[in-house]
Each structure stands twice: as C-alpha cells, then as structure tokens.
C-alpha cells in the first residue's frame, strides 16, 4: 500500500436481486483527507459504504486497510468498528427509546459491567466539546432529528477511528449545524483521520472536500482532485450528460402567484404541537414556510393536514367550512402531505413500491373498493417512469430502494391522489441535483395546473426559486411574511434572525 493511504477497495462487485448495485468499483482513501463520494440517487454510494462496513457481503473484490496484513476481514459492522472504521449511516440507526448517553455507548465496551455514571460523564464531555445541545440522560426520541444526527456522529467520533464515514449527514441539519459538523470534520482530518463524505449538496463538497470519487449506475466514473473538477463538470460526470439548465435555473422567471380564489384558509388553527396561527393559500399559488429547524414550520403544516392532534381553529376549503382533525379528512378535502421524516412517517418498508405508490389513493377510494391489480400496476408503471424511479421492479420492497428513490415513491403516492393542495415538507431531502431541479419544475407545473403547493426546504435558494410568498417562523410563531422584492436571501435571513420584517 502506498504511503499515506489508509484504505483501498479494489474491484468491488455487489449484486442485489434484479440490480447490479456495484460493478468493479475502486476506491482509495488517504489519511487526513476528506473524500466526497458522489453520484445520482441509486448510483451505489450507500451500498459501497455498507460493503466496507460489513453490512453487506461483497460478491467480489478486495479491501485493504493500513496496518493490516493482507485483506481486511470485514463481515459485520463490529469487525469494521474494531479495525477503526466508524460510520454514520444515511438513515439514523439509533434507538429512540434509550437515552442519549446509552445510544452513544451501546454495543461498545468489551466488559459487561459498564458503569452508567462513567459513560454518562464521558458522553457529557463529548457532547460539550462538539457543542451538541443534548443532555446525556435525555431520551433520544425527545431530541430533534438534527440533534439525533449529531448524536450519531458523536457516537462514531468517540470510537478512536482511522476512517470516518458520513452518509448524507447534513441532509437534516441547518446552516449553523452544518458548520459545526464541518469544523469537527476538519479537526479530525488534521488528526489524520480519513473521512468519506456522501452528500447531494455540491457547495458543501467544495467547501470541505479534498478529493471526489464519482459513481454512476454502480460503476466507477473516476477519482478527481477537487481543484481539477469544477462544479459543472462534476454534475456532468454524475449524470453522464451536461446539465445545461443548472445555470438557467435561477431565471425561472415567472413565479406562480395563483388566482384570486382561495383554496385553503385557516383561522387560528392550532395543534398539540403548535400555537394558533392564520394561514391561507390561493389556487395555483406556491408558498413556503421557512425558519430554523425547530421553528415550528413542520408542526404548522402538520396541523393543516391533521397529522398532530388538532386543538382548535376554523378551516375553509374552497370557501366551504370543513372539519379537518384527522389525515383522512384532509385527504378527502383534496389535501396531500409529504412528511419530513421519510423513514418514520412516509415509507412502509416491507411493502412493494407498487403498494406504496397506490396507498393514499386506495385509502381515499375506500375500504370496500380496492384497486384491481391491473390498475395498481398501471399507476405504478406510470409514476416509476414519470419520476424516473430506480427500482428493480414494482414489486421490490420500498425499503431496499436507495434513499432518494424512496423519497420519489412517496412523492408519487401523493401526486397520484391529484390533490388541490399539496404540502411538501422537505421533498428534496436526499435527492440528487438533477432530480432536485426536476422536482422544483414539477412544483411549478403543478401550480400552473391550479394546484396550490406549500413547499418547505432547508435550502432557502430552493424556496426562493419556487415560492411567491414565504412565511417566516421563529420560536413556533409566524414572525413575517415576505413577497415580491423582499424575496431574497438577505431579507429572509434577516427575518429569521429577528431583524425587522418589512
């Protein structure tokens, strides 16, 4: 092994039923570098990582680690941990009903008698040094998704590792938390740790990474030093074609303002999770809720859909007073909701892609009117093609799709119900650049077809591109509403931070 290399993977192949997830892939990691692993949804990034960490057995190829004679024997995540590979997987894999400290230390210490006090103290130190706002004895479920993500990283960091793997760790973090994570990564890098970083945020790659390896359809496209691969080229390598729209995207121009008619109107609506607020959206309008994580933006839309216990308020849909306290009532009134937490609230992992796509439509049709198999297959085929969902077949369980493709299936589910008002909470989370644009365009197209859309995203630019009105939230309250010329990054940041709203 050449000097400075901590890890080499050569000729890795991995086949799943109906998919060749990895085909002869090479990967090299040097110590003290941050190495981005890039590719479209379903390119094989997570699979490569899971082969490295022993979650999957590779079909062929070899893995070598610095300091180990011959091939590294990795057959389980424990094996990987023991030789110094620490991992934060794409989907959080902690136990929500244990405490933060327990989550950081379960399955670790060799001895059976690990003193609770000891590890709680150690956890406290690490959390403090990383600036993670969680207490060791707090139950994990009571932390926000972002904090849970940070805890997963803290767990990995504490294991004296040579290789740290982060699979889309930033997809649910806000700007400040991302910076916190980056400084942590740079710190580890300076101590000689090699870091593998998977993300769909191109700016982040250029901010922290030294090298990029690109995968496409399970094959290696190439390895590049960051300076030699400008962003446009990176995208081209990932997609296998030029993405000419990337630049023109900013000039989307006409933003759908909607017509005069009001699709949905709520007065003083409140739920167990959010304070009373007023809200209305016009036919064909795209609006957004923005604010930091935990500002109450997700809770607000959940109240609209009846996802949490609705505690008050008057609601009108298309001018008629209606009662919406449960999801089914919202659906019957033409409202669709793509939830923020895909794994917890979106997918039904063991059911097929087909069943996952038709689920909401089926529920709306009713208990005694099941869709025929032929109808279901037709819908599934239609949306798999329309959204370009990468799956071995429509009978594949959704749980075995790549993260981004799972998200597309959930999106398909709601498009299929042809809602009048569609609420999208972080629809582009975990979605590759090309598809992100597709989804933004889809939202604009829906608006043209007179669908009202609420679009929530942690990426403000994405919202600025699509929304004609932004509702800004802070501390679970609406603190401003921006339209027209106020719709720019500065003004949004200022309002979020507590400056004067216009």
């Amino acid at each position, binding site marked *: 092994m050449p000097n400075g290399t901590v890890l080499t993977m050569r000729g890795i192949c991995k086949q799943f*039923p*109906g998919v060749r997830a990895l085909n002869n892939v090479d990967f090299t990691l040097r110590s003290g570098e941050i190495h981005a692993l890039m590719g479209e949804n379903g390119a094989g990034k997570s699979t490569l990582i899971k082969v490295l960490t022993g979650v999957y*057995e590779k079909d062929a190829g070899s893995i070598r680690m610095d300091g180990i004679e011959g091939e590294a024997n990795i057959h389980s995540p424990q094996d990987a941990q023991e030789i110094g590979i620490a991992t934060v997987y794409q989907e959080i894999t902690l136990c929500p009903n244990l405490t933060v400290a327990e989550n950081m230390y379960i399955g670790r210490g060799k001895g059976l008698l690990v003193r609770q006090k000891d590890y709680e103290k150690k956890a406290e130190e690490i959390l403090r040094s990383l600036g993670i706002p969680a207490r060791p004895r707090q139950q994990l479920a009571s932390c926000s998704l972002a904090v849970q993500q940070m805890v997963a990283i803290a767990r990995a960091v504490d294991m004296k590792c040579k290789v740290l793997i982060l699979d889309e760790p930033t997809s649910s973090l806000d700007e400040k938390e991302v910076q916190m994570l980056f400084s942590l990564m740079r710190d580890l890098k300076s101590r000689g740790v090699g870091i593998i970083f998977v993300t769909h945020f191109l700016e982040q790659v250029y901010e922290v990474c030294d090298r990029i390896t690109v995968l496409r359809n399970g094959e290696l496209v190439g390895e590049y030093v960051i300076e030699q691969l400008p962003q446009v080229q990176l995208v081209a390598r990932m997609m296998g074609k030029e993405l000419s729209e990337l630049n023109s995207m900013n000039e989307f121009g006409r933003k759908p303002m909607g017509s005069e008619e009001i699709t949905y109107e709520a007065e003083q609506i409140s739920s167990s999770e959010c304070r009373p607020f007023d809200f209305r959206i016009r036919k064909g309008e795209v609006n957004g809720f923005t604010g930091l994580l935990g500002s109450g933006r997700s809770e607000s839309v959940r109240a609209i*859909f009846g*996802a949490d216990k609705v505690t008050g308020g008057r609601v009108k849909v298309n001018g008629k007073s209606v009662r919406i306290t*449960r*999801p*089914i009532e919202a*659906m019957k009134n033409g409202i669709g*909701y793509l*939830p923020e937490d895909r794994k*917890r*609230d*979106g*997918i*039904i*992992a*063991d*059911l097929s892609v087909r*069943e996952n796509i038709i*689920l*909401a439509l*089926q*529920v*709306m049709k*009713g*208990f*005694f*009117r*099941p869709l025929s198999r032929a109808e279901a297959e037709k819908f599934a085929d239609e949306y798999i093609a329309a959204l370009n969902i990468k799956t*071995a*077949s429509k*009978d*594949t369980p959704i749980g075995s799709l790549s993260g981004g493709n799972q998200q597309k299936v959930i999106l398909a*589910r709601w498009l299929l119900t042809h809602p009048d008002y569609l609420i999208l909470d972080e629809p582009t989370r975990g979605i590759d650049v090309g598809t992100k644009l597709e989804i933004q365009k889809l939202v604009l197209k829906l608006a043209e077809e007179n669908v009202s859309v609420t679009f929530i995203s942690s990426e403000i630019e994405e919202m600025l591109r699509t929304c004609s009105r932004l509702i800004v939230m802070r501390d679970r309250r609406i603190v401003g509403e921006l339209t027209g010329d106020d719709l720019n990054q500065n003004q949004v940041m200022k309002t979020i931070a507590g400056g004067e709203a216009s």
Partner: protein
Amino acid sequence: MTREAGKRKGGVGQLLIPLIAIALLVIFNLIRDPSFFSIETKTNNTGNTVLAGNLISIINGASELAILAMGMTLVTAACGGQDISVGAAAAIAGSVFVRIIRGAAPVTGGTVIGAFLACCAVAMLFGSFNGMLVAVFRIQPMIATLILYTCGRSIAYWINGGATPTIDSPITGAIGSFIPGIPVPTPVIIVAVMALLFSLTFRFTTLGLYTQAVGINESSARLNGINVTLIKLVSFIILGICVSVAGSIGVCRLGLINHETLLIDIEMDTILAVAIGGNSLGGGKFKISGSILGAYVIQMLTITLYAMKVSSTDVKAYKAIVIILLVVIGSPVVKRWFTKVIGNMRNARKIRGAAKEGV
C-alpha cells in the same frame, strides 16, 4: 429479472418451510408404514358412507386449529403480538352455544343457527374487549389477552352453572362429524368455507393492505389516512368470529361442553401455526395460507407421534423438538447462511469449470 426476485414476487418462498415439513412427515410415515395414508370408505354408525383413514383424521382434527390460526394471523400482522386467550374464549363461546341449544325443546336448524350467531356475538364482544385494550390503551397483546386467558374458563363455568351438559341433536352431531350423504367430515368443509371467506374479504376489501401497513409502520399508515385503531380492533373482532366457529365445532364434535378441557392449550399451537407458516410474529406482512399449512403440520406431527405409540405426556416434548427445528430453519440467520453456501457452491463450480477449460 433474476430468479430470486421472481421467487419473491410469487411469495411461494414463505410457504417453503411448512411444505417441506409436510413432505418430510409424509415420507417418514410412508417408510414407517406404507399404508399409513391409505384412505378407505366405511359405513359409520348413522349409516353414512364416509371417508376414513389417518389422513382424514389429521385434516379433520386440525380444523379448529386451522380456523383459529387464520384469525391469529390477522391479529399478529396488525398488532405485532398474539392473543393468548383464544382457548378460553372458545370455551365461553362453546358454553353459550350449548346453553342456547339446550334451552330449545326441539332442536331445529334455526336453533342451531341462532345459537351460533349468539356465541359469535359473544366471542366478538370479548374480541373487541381485547382489541380495545390493545388498540386504544396500547397494552401489549399478550398482556392484554392474559386477562381473558386467566378468567375465561371461569366465565364459561358460570354460563352453564358449573355443569358439563351434553347436547345430542342429530344436527349438532352432523356438524361435529358427517352430514348424511357427504363423505367429507363437516369440520373440514367449514375450514374450506372460512378460508374462502377470508380470501373473498381480501379480494373485495383493502383489509389485507391496511393490516400490513399498520403492522409495518403505524405512523405512516395513519398519515395515509388509515384508521389504525379500527384496523387493530377489526383484527381482534375477526379473530372473535374464528373463535366462535372453532368453539362450536369443538362442542359439536364432543357432544358436550367441558369448560375445563375444550380446546385446552390451543393458543400455543395456534401461535406456532402462524410462525411455522412463515409469518413474522412481529407483525407486518402475512400469508393466511401459510398459517393453515402450519396448523396441518402441527396436527400431522401429533398424529404421527401417537401412531408411533409415544405416550401423550412425551408427545409434547417431541413436538417441541421438531418445532424448534422448524422455527430455526425458517429464521433469517439460517436462510442467509443457506443462500451464502449455495452462492459459494455455484462460484466454486464456475471456478472449477474455468480451470478445466484452462487445462
């Protein structure tokens, strides 16, 4: 599409274990006694020509178990837990059935139907009680049903005032054994009817999809508009119907109700049938046909052991051994190991083939 994906689509894979188990038991018995499964016709004491033989008594004897296993599958899938009160509830249902039959002076077809409907209603009521505890109060199914498991047979005792009364009407007799002119045992026909009802329910309603959705991810199911509480409740109510059918068959077979022994210990066999059928006891995806096969596996095993003159106390121990084997073989760990071994063998063959060509 590869072969494996094709297999998953058909879903036959899940039935492999019970089918293999049945095949092994059949072969074992045939070696032991080539005439073991021979079916003969004979004339029974009411003058009917009927089918008889070990095979018939296995299929017939498994009827109550098979019916309970169907309902249990649904509860397991929706709630991720099991109802351990089915035996006790069946004793209650059977007692109600007997009490109404005995209350009628001439027992007509109408009386029997009325008695069945009444015991069905009672069983559904107890089912809803269990269901409420599980779906509304979110108590673990095993804990929730422990209540009825404990007190069910006492309730059954009260219904007939502590006696073990008999019923001897030709109609109930026919339900428990043979209908004149039909050579197939009536319980077997009832199992077929129940299986048909289940498959029609799954065909003409979305119960199957909803139940699996609830069992796999409750939160997602709710956000897709499914009434999670209702689905869990319904699963227990349907199990209640199964309990009343099994209980009625049980008393008709014996011609009396003994609240202490009717379908005693059947809850564990029922749960095992569900597991042997390849269904996850943690809920989610399910296959009713698997559970029915599972019931027949258990009964075939029991009859085989009796035929081998194993004493009834020892039967339980032998059964346990076989069941452990079946469950372990069906476990994901062993399955993964098998796929790996098979894969390695294929690779080895390929390499050897290549080497030969080289020479």
